[in-house]
């Protein structure tokens, strides 16, 4: 198993390097440069040239890339132009915030998704199934940024139960209950779509398993229905669902881009949006590298869990 994990990790390295090259090229290709973004209306060719020189952007593209790569290998991700601070500090801070949000959402959507899927498979074509399937359909098709705004309107503006934005209270607070209080709305919003996807897949997968011969055997030998579902069917169905949860982890991180903007969550998604619009290349590179690495790790973790659960894959 350790050898397998190591092999997967080594295989990820060229992927990540390729990614940095692609990000670098895309950022170089989109029109508008850093200096123009900083200077705004004052971007005369003269001022732009001077500022680019001060920022070290007057060098050729490959030169810039290799300088960046050289520094990266020494653990230095450079300095953000727009935030005037080391990229690594900013990215680590933002990434932890995203992990808290995305991690919570992932746990929520796994629990609710699996639960809903199992229940609706067991009660196939019953009322419970119909209601769950209907809710799941709504969940999957609701744009999450819109749902976020609705939740803010209902729970922050009208009922004043939860704060509208931020990660911690502006004065006081800063402890775990404060964090949870701020986490509820964004984490729920972010988990809705993924819950739907997981629920649907769990339902299909469960239905398939429930039709298998060994389930009939289990029932025939007089095993309690609850045991049949929990021990025999669910475990087998889970094997098919786990990799999808891994993929959903990626989508949840992607969805964080909107949700973080709507809830002003200080995560890496909202950071990337700002970094791209200010053409802050180094910050984009650093952010994308972290997100991509996380994506690779999530999928790897899902594969490992799947292998552990399913003896057929070993």
């Amino acid at each position, binding site marked *: 198993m350790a050898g397998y994990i190591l092999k997967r990790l080594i295989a990820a390295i060229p992927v990540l390097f390729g990614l940095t090259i692609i990000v670098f090229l895309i950022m170089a290709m989109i029109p508008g440069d850093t200096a123009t973004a900083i200077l705004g*209306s004052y971007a005369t060719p003269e001022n732009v040239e001077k500022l680019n020189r001060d920022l070290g952007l007057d060098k050729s593209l490959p030169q810039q890339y290799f300088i960046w790569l050289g520094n990266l290998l020494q653990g230095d991700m450079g300095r953000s132009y727009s935030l005037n601070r080391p990229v690594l500090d900013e990215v680590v801070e*933002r990434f932890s915030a995203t992990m808290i949000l995305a991690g919570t959402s992932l746990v929520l959507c796994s629990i609710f998704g699996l639960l809903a899927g199992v229940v609706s498979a067991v009660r196939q074509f019953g009322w419970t199934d119909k209601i769950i399937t209907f809710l799941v359909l709504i969940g999957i098709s609701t744009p999450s940024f819109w749902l976020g705004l609705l939740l803010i309107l209902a729970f922050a503006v009208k009922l004043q139960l939860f704060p509208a934005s931020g990660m911690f209270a502006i004065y006081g607070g800063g402890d775990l209950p404060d964090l949870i209080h701020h986490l509820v709305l964004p984490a729920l919003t972010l988990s809705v779509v993924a819950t739907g996807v997981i629920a649907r897949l769990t339902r299909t997968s469960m239905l398939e398993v429930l039709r298998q011969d060994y389930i009939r055997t289990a029932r025939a030998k007089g095993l309690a229905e609850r045991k049949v579902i929990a021990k025999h069917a669910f475990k087998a169905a889970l094997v098919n669902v786990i990799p999808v949860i891994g993929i959903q982890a990626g989508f949840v991180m992607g969805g964080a881009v909107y949700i973080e903007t709507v809830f002003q969550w200080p995560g890496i998604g909202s950071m990337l949006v700002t970094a791209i619009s200010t053409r802050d290349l180094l910050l984009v590179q650093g952010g994308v590298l972290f997100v991509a690495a996380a994506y690779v790790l999530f999928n790897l973790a899902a594969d490992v869990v799947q292998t552990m659960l399913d003896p057929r894959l070993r």
Partner: protein
Amino acid sequence: MKRLLAAVIASVWMTFSFQAAAQTPPNVLVVGQIAEPKSLDPHAVTAVNDFRILVNIYDGLVRYKDGTLEVEPSLAESWEISEDGKTYTFKLRDGVTFHDGTPFNAEAVKFNFDRMLDENHPFHDTGPFPLSFFFSAVDEVTAVDESTVEFKLTEPYAPFLSNLAYPTGLIVSPEAVKQHGKDFGRNPVGTGAYKFEGWEANAKVVVSRNEAYWDGAAPLEAVIFRPITDANTRIAEMLSGGLDVMVEVPPDSLQQFRGDDRFVVQEQAGPHVWFLILNTKDGPFANKAVRQAANYAINKTALVENILQGTAEVASGPTPPAFAWAYNESLEPYAYDPEKAKALLKEAGYNGEEVTFYVTEGGSGMLDPVAMGTAIQADLQAVGMKVKIETYEWNTFLGKVNPGLEGKADMAEMAWMTNDPDTLPFLALRSEAFPDKGGFNSGYYANEKVDELLNKARQVTDQAERAKLYKQMQEIVYEDAPWVFVANWKQNAVTSSRVENFKLQPSFFLMLQKVAKP
């Protein structure tokens, strides 16, 4: 099991409802900003959003008089300008110290400008300083004695004083720059009414009252600036009581706050002008009659009232009325007169040729550019002009417009906000300011008389004399119509009704020195 669940839900509910009901505490002002500040080094930033914090931490040698764009003493008590307009001598206020306890004096002023302007200065690398060209006329800064500082300019440059009142002219503590180097922008030290307490990335910047402020300590104990990029979220925070002040309220939402006595809506016209650059070099707008026709054809009142919902006023010329002393009162906006527009088009022999119109999706001071662009297209089509819109993201848009419209487009949206009546016309209406000469005259407007007036206005230091020249320039530009003059934006803010003495300034800076919230 069910009872347990109910108990858990009830207790969670109660904890949270107690927390959320708490309002912002007295004597602490929470301000909703539109974005995270880039830096709190006043020489390193360009955005109004950052200026709102900076003008409360730092002072300049001079500042804008309350409610105007006229300069008054601040850290400098008085000044003299030499006969030739090339030497400015400032007498500095005695006994002022920076928040770190180091003295403010002539050497400190010299350090500030040398750091920005001298590439060999040991702390020039703490930049870059994108707006340092505001002071490009400065040749040398000399500390004559402890409280006298002299600026020698390479040529007479009348906007110098109002540039000193701009955030780029705010004075930072030299010792703090030496101590923090490149990280000074995250550890700001000035002389202002509030001193810096802390900055949590993407959450808040906190400043607290400077008890020893030379202009009298502020009533507020602290101000918290919160970045909330999404406008809807900002509104939700304001409505739920998490903010005391919110700036840049979208027009659609102003009405909601107007009808609610928990809030006060503030408005103030600023030195902003929203216009269309017309390509006077090639295409139909090379003809003056067609340019005037466009000015008559567009229903500016409808744009301002319907699309901008009263958050702007109709512009009458290239200079916004906020520059009260330099604004030509006698100019009336081009009337909305489609018949006259048609007649002018006919007289000019316009043959129905299609015009290309660059529209941006957003951008600093651009208001609601897509909706405005579409309405303008409809107005022009109503008088028989065929208009093709091309929409671009803001930075891409600037990359297309700033190098000039020749061969690409006939008109483009644009907006400027400046601190001196010199800036915009000097950079965008002179023939020496064509894009290939490093200016912003993207429509290639050229009028010798305008060039002469603008060049002269820079050299005269007497304000009344300068005003005359600017007023004359406005008349000529109005008649030549190199732009369609559309709107002057009114900045707005909403405060909670607990906030006292809050006032928006024409400079668009957020001055919180006198604000109270008992």
